[in-house]
């Protein structure tokens, strides 16, 4: 029982990170039709900006982590907004070129990170209370799992409230359905594009910071490896659907953990790919329709 609880909460923690990456990816594709292969690079940039900031501030590990997180989030949002303004915007309605640009950018940003900080993993500042464990029904759960789950839940609630109750949220929800008609109502949808990219970059950077806490280290390939699963989550959840993305992220995180433990170590990734195949066969549009909510 205690093992099952540990696996479940660890799976939810992993799912939380997948959700943070996949939510931005999903909204960007849903609204703009851009398959953003550079999204993992936003995560890496955010994680390294956070690590760099943590080396320049004093105080305890908690203060370091807070400052690091803020710096990481700012860097992720800024880089994503600049990418949209400078690289994606000139290529609207040219999807092949957009894919090529985002693939190239992912490679270039990873190479840049490696050039500046090297190939080796860096120790991430994690306060002791996050490394400590809390015992639930006999399972010793590392506290960082609760932080990851709570953060993702807050982002889900915040994003849902933003989409539901703000004018920009309304524009994004409408734009996911019919971008041309939004412009035909006199709305400059390009501003929403930049905002969605910045929000996506922010969420990815948050995932980068939390991945540093989860794994205890960061490395230049972190974004790429997590991006693969984020893409799977988005396909399973349905492009443009935040609710569907959240459900899919949890399912993928849990299946990975359960399969790795109960079947065989390493089978978790295969199980996720099998799940993807099943969803594509039975419900090709994903768990949720193409409506941002």
């Amino acid at each position, binding site marked *: 029982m205690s093992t099952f609880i540990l696996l479940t909460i660890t799976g939810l923690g992993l799912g939380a990170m997948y959700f943070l990456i996949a939510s931005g990816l999903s909204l960007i594709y849903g609204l703009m039709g851009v398959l953003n292969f550079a999204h993992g690079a936003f995560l890496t940039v955010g994680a390294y900006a956070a690590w760099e900031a943590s080396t320049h501030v004093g105080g305890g590990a908690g203060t370091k982590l807070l400052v690091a997180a803020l710096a990481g989030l700012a860097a992720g949002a800024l880089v994503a907004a600049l990418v949209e303004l400078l690289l994606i915007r000139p290529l609207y309605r040219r999807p092949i070129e957009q894919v090529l640009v985002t693939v190239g950018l992912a490679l270039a940003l990873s190479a840049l990170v490696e050039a500046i900080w090297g190939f080796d993993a860096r120790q991430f500042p994690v306060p002791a209370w996050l490394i400590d464990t809390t015992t639930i029904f006999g399972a010793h759960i590392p506290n960082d799992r609760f932080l990851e789950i709570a953060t993702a839940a807050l982002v889900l609630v915040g994003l849902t409230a933003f989409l539901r109750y703000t*004018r920009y949220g*309304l*524009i994004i*929800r*409408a734009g996911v*359905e*019919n971008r*041309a*008609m*939004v*412009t*035909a*109502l*006199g*709305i*400059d*949808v390009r501003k929403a594009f930049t905002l969605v990219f910045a929000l996506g970059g922010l969420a990815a950077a948050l995932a980068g910071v939390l991945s540093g806490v989860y794994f205890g280290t960061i490395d230049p390939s972190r974004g790429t490896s997590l991006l693969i699963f984020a893409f799977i989550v988005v396909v399973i959840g349905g492009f443009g659907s935040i609710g569907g993305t959240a459900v899919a992220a949890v399912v993928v995180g849990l299946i990975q953990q359960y399969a790795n433990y109960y079947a065989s170590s390493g089978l978790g990734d295969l199980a996720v790919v099998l799940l993807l195949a099943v969803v594509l066969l039975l419900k090709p549009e994903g768990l949720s*329709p193409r*409506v*941002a*909510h």
Partner: protein
Amino acid sequence: MALIAVDDLHVYLGESHVLQGVSFEVPEGGVTALLGRNGVGKTTTLRAMMGLVPRRGSVTLAGEELNRLPTHSIVRRGIGYVPEDRDVFAGLTVDENLRLAERNGNPRYELVYELFPELKTRGGQKAGTLSGGQQQMVAIARALLNDNPVLLVDEPTKGLAPLLVTEVAAALERAAELATVLLVEQNLAVVARVAQQVVVLDGGRVVHTGGAKELLGDPERIRELLGVHGGGH
């Protein structure tokens, strides 16, 4: 003087040269109907005027060139658009569809609810669950919500039951009191009721312009230009 002037408008969709130099003028006030057989380029003309398809040529509104402007800027010059397939946002409620269309601090909800009282009672309903007629009301209401001097309305009665056609025609008449309307419409009874001028397209070109009464009173000419019998009004 013409409020809108379309001059030598060309549109290519893939290999197809859909509009081959369309030119016409729309006088200020009233309804000008854009007529023609299926596939002659009526909807494409409206979409080109809105900047929704790549186009060449000139479209001016009160002398100002619109063809270099993006769609949202054209709308902000005061052109409301009701698309052929309604294009309501199915996942948004009726209220949200209307709220999205608001462009200034004085949306004309009183006018909209006076014309379509049903929209008030169905405010919280998802637009995707409305009937075709109700969706058309939402589409027209979005264009009427702002003080647009021009409305481009594409086949508003398409697929509607006769009772709803009457209701939509009444709304068009009311709209024409407030704005200049360029209307694409296949139902000649509706054209006869609301339009003062007609522009007829054929093969991507304008083949006739003139008064609505004159054309609709000449069954032979209607058959020649539109390929239909003119007894519908």
